[in-house]
């Protein structure tokens, strides 16, 4: 099959959506700028015109609110935030409005909206250009959250998000943009709420989100050399998440490592760990391990960044601890 990079796959999904559905439009900052969007939106403004690809003023609250309103009025907007940090200026339309709208009005009006937020960190940028806040949004009823890690899923989950009929937060990570993988040419969806087994194994289950899925696959290879047969699950949908697939895997292995490159306290890993220990207490052979960022803002100095970010090595250590070596 043809291969694309992760960024190209996102771009292709946008192009197909714009081509096939006149209700779809894009609004947000940096739509025409590679500095903000990498290659993920390249050329869309010239292909589809500035009426449908609106590179906006520095107004996150208004653009997001407008996208919520347009969605309620029957459009299928995709609002783009080149960094998740900037999206925080739009918490009212996302949390108070979009997430609650369907419920408040007994489902008579809904918000078929995609909010796309990019995690873009490292490179000595510091605390306000680094934050991965999926847990914050996972917390909210009424909102769905996806985090693809492969080019195939990046395309399929975006198309699924636009089709969903609910507000969906689509989080992509700049560290994934050059990942290459097979991507079908047609429109297809990856169902929201499903995880994917990337490698089967018997000794320990590793669940990873977004970029950590890449690190987890490296960890799996190292563990194999050391005689540990790990199963790797790419979570890809944060809310709803695939309880069944993960429970089945833990029933088989009895050991669980969860890696999420976000803060530890009240994070995605904590939520999964709590559910697994409630449902599968008897199946567990070892305490659940979390591989996350320390509870601290992102530093600037490369010397501290090295200590701050987690890698395959941290997953290997956690898996070995779970297995008891």
């Amino acid at each position, binding site marked *: 099959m043809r291969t694309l990079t992760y960024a190209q796959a996102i771009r292709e999904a946008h192009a197909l959506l714009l081509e096939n559905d006149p209700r779809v439009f894009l609004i947000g900052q*940096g739509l025409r700028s590679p*500095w903000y969007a990498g290659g993920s939106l390249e050329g869309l403004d010239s292909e589809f015109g500035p009426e449908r690809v609106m590179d*906006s003023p520095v107004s996150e609250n208004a653009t997001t609110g407008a996208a919520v309103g347009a969605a309620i009025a029957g459009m299928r907007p995709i609002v783009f935030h080149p960094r998740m940090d*900037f999206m925080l*200026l739009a918490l009212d339309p996302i949390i108070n409005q979009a997430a609650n709208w369907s419920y408040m009005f007994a489902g008579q009006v809904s918000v078929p909206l995609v909010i796309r937020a990019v995690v873009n960190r490292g490179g000595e940028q510091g605390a*306000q250009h680094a934050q991965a806040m999926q847990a914050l949004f996972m917390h909210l009823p009424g909102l769905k959250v996806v985090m693809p890690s492969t080019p195939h899923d990046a395309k399929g989950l975006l198309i699924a998000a636009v089709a969903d009929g609910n507000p969906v937060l689509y989080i992509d990570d700049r560290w994934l943009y050059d990942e290459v993988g097979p991507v079908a040419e047609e429109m297809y969806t990856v169902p929201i709420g499903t995880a994917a087994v990337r490698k089967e194994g018997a000794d320990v289950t590793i669940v990873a989100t977004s970029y950590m899925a890449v690190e987890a696959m490296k960890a799996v290879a190292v563990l194999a050399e050391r005689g540990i047969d790990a199963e790797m699950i790419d979570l890809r949908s944060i809310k709803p998440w695939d309880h069944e697939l993960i429970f089945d895997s833990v029933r088989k292995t009895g050991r669980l490592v969860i890696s999420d490159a976000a803060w530890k306290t009240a994070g995605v890993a904590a939520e999964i760990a709590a559910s697994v220990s409630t449902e599968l207490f008897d199946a567990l052979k070892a305490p659940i391990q979390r591989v996350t960022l320390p509870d601290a803002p992102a530093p600037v*100095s490369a010397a501290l960044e090295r200590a701050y970010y987690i890698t395959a090595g941290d997953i290997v250590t956690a898996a070995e601890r779970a297995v008891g070596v």
Partner: protein
Amino acid sequence: MGSEQTEGARQLLLQTYRSMRRIRRFEERTADLIEAGEIKTPCHLYIGQEAIAAGVCAALGRDDYIWGGHRSHGHYLAKGGGLAAMMAELYGKATGCSGGRGGSMHLVAPEVGLLGTVPLVAATIPLAVGAALASKLRNDGRVSVSFFGDGATEEGHFHESLNLAALYRLPVIFVCENNFYSSHLHLLERRAEDNIVESGRAHGVPAARLDGNDALAVHQATAEAVARARRGDGPTLLECRTYRWRGHVGPAWDMDVGVRRKDELKEWQSRDPVAQGRQRLLDGGYPEAELEQTDRGIEEEIEQAVEFARTSPYPDEASLLDFVYASGTGGP
């Protein structure tokens, strides 16, 4: 003009020239160090806009507050932040003004009233209003200055802050550095009219549009705003029109974003604020040899700062979790 006045005017010319020249050379040296791979934290250079920081800060006292954003090297230097400490910060060193945690976009110098610059656009505008509120409640006579760009006026923060400051007659000065771009987008791709200054009037804040490349004009307008604020007559908005010479971020000349920028840049470079300041001094009879002496002093200071930054230690890994919570009871 009496001789005292002449001396005062000359002092101001000299002070703003020195301030601008220091910023210009710091930024040019930083650009080279980025290209050499020594500085890696993203830097938004202030080259071309020096007259604003220099003119505003020359009208402030040491205790007055300033606030800034992602393009604040100039604000930090003009207010009196330590040059070597900022250079070390750009290197990510423990001796940096933010201990290597902040880099170019998070500068601080509490000892001279700079309580923080952050890259979230418009974020410090309401904080400047809050510092002015503190000054008003304490009746301590301090003025609070908020530096921000034209892009920041598109955020609700800007409009809400102007209203609040006008309503409570707070001693705050909103300094909008209108360089006509927010990253890759020209002002008129982001707003229907070139009318930032009118936001002041709409919110009941006296406002003026200035030549932001003229340090004396900026100083004069700021001095009036400071006097108004200290009298208890409330805020002022100054729209200072200027131009950034380099790219949005990094050292490149940014000629690649279209013909418009290329032509504009040439035009604005012919109104170089630093050269203008120098020429004024020479026109007033200031000896060129003394100016060269001043320039040499700046070069030495910068080279010593680079040396300091290079030889300073990196923060210790074990200190990663330090400062997540403050150890004291608060306040600068």
